[in-house]
């Protein structure tokens, strides 16, 4: 009983001692280690996770992160090639690819970040100042393809009409390439550089707002005048069609009436021409019936057929 407990205590004590003294050290999946002895690195970096051995007390295990790390610099005010002042916010991803060099050069992440500040910021500045603004905004020229919409976001600024030659992604690539060349001496591998944000500086932004407002007001005016124009067109058409309809109707009606008149005359003539004298006789008698009334003063000759028997009977 005593022996068993003695053994257990012994084991526990030994293990604890091993860890405390530094004989054994643990490397996590996320870590890599450089062993230094009196400040000088010994051997290669230890990247395999698990338990490792080193000389206790004399040798020190320096831990570094093995994972993908980020660098996110402060936004910088940079002028583009076409003299537009913009805030550029770049973000990068990097790894400690050579922990030995890393330890010897920058020693820790804080100074590494500072070094990266210099490298990446200057590479970004070079690239931005070397290109016009539109190259940092667009990645493709798709804005020129496709149908023109009715409510076109009129490309009002002159530089926006240009097609890009390089583009946003390519610019990021150039910054990455430049930075990548410099960092290996620090044991750093820059994996990626991306433009996170680009914005106008304050007074340029105000001007852009003014430009947008003016353009929208122009578009509004255009719609209004299009409306007026179309209305004038429709009104004109209405008037014209009205006139046409009315005059056509008049013409047709007149034609009909004319034909009717002509035919009537024809009918009359045909009939009356059978005996024009007889017609005259009849018509005259009718006229007597119509016109003689109490206001008429009649002058009758005894020669008339009516009175002829007054003279004598024959």
């Amino acid at each position, binding site marked *: 009983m*005593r022996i068993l*407990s*003695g053994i*257990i205590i012994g084991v526990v004590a030994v293990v604890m001692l091993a860890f405390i003294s530094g004989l054994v050290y*643990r490397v*996590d999946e*996320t*870590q890599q280690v450089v062993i230094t002895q009196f400040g000088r690195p010994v051997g290669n970096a230890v990247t395999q996770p*698990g*338990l490792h051995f080193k000389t206790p007390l004399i040798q020190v295990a320096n831990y570094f*992160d*093995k994972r*993908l790390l*980020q660098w996110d610099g402060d936004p910088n005010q940079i002028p583009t090639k076409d003299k537009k002042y913009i805030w550029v916010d770049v*973000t990068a*991803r990097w790894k400690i690819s050579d922990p030995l060099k890393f330890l010897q050069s920058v020693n820790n992440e804080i100074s590494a970040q500072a070094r990266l500040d210099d490298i990446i910021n200057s590479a970004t500045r070079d690239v931005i100042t070397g290109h016009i603004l539109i190259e940092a905004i667009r*990645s493709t020229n*798709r*804005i020129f393809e496709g149908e023109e919409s009715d409510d*076109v976001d009129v*490309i009002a600024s002159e530089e926006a009409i240009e097609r890009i030659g390089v583009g946003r*992604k390519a610019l990021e690539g150039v910054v990455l390439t430049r930075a990548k060349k410099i960092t290996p001496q620090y044991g750093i591998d820059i994996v*990626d550089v*991306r*433009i996170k*944000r*680009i*914005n106008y500086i304050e007074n340029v932004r105000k001007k852009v*707002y003014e430009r*947008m*407002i003016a353009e929208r*007001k122009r578009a509004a005016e255009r*719609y209004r005048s299009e*409306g007026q124009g179309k*209305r004038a067109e429709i009104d004109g*058409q*209405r008037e014209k069609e009205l006139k046409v*309809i*009315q005059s*056509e*109707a008049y013409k047709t009606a007149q034609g*009909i009436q004319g*034909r009717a008149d002509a*035919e*009537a005359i024809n*009918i009359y003539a045909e*009939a*009356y021409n059978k*005996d024009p004298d*007889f*017609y005259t*006789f009849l018509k005259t*008698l009718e006229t007597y019936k119509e016109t*003689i*009334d*109490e*206001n008429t003063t*009649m002058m*009758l000759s*005894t020669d008339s057929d009516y009175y002829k028997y007054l003279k004598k009977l024959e």
Partner: protein
Amino acid sequence: MDFKTPEDILNEGRKRFNNLAGFAPLAIMGIVLLVGALGSIYSIGPDEVGVIQRFGKFARLSQPGLHIKMPFGIEKLTPVKVERIWKEEFGLRTLQPGIKTRYSQREYLEESLMLTGALNILDVQWIVQFRVKDPVKLLFETREPLENVRDMAEVVMRRLVGDYRVDEVLTTKREEIDDLAHQQMQEILDAYGTGVKIVTVRLLDVNPPDPVKPAFNEVNEAKQEKERVINQAWEAYNKVIPMAKGEAEQTIRRAEGYNLDKINRAQGEAERFLLTYQEYKKAPAITKERMYLETMMDVIPKAKDKYVIDPNQSSILPLLNIGRKGGLE
């Protein structure tokens, strides 16, 4: 006297200590066993996966349920929620989710303002939903998977908006942008090895910036006014033209009526004449005489003043006054 000498007390103490000392190993063993037991049993929830590392090195994954691992720091457990969907917001913040979600009134302009392909400015709000697809990568490949998601969300969205026009981002191409953003974010995050799977990228409110909004509204109003003005013109047209057509029809019908009337009348009178003429032709002289006398009979009584004149006489004298009351005066 029963005094205990100092040596006696010490001896007694030593004896008692030795007795206790026998218990010490047992006690320590007990504690060790307890700690060991506690450190070796663990459970994984239904929405989780357990990542086990032995001395720091990845050993295995544990599925939901009760499991045993090595205690005393030999094996370390990190549970990871693989079913849960996380949401990140950009340009806005939800204060209180729920049926009536409350949003922060604060503007997040640094996040939301961005440049379009025509160098205009838009206020863009969007969300990204994601979950863990590879817990091992999540824990071991990148230091800040969440920050990677947020950063790349901004990188990708700004890149896309920089390729589109204002009206496209406002309305027509929203879904296209959502899809492309989803694709491109996933590409980058996979390349980094974040172990994250993007579930959704969705544009929410997209607006022109506040100073410009009134001008944009003006355009909408102008568009509506154009429609209205045109509609009114067509209305006026539709009021006038059909009516005019109707009236035109009427005019023509009336003329046709006149036509019919005139011709019928002519035909009627012609017919009458012809009939009369037929009769007349049978005995012309006597018919003529008869008609004349009938007319005179009808007509002469009507006239008030009548003078019969004998052409052989040289002056006009009222020899006969037929029909006048009072006779010669």
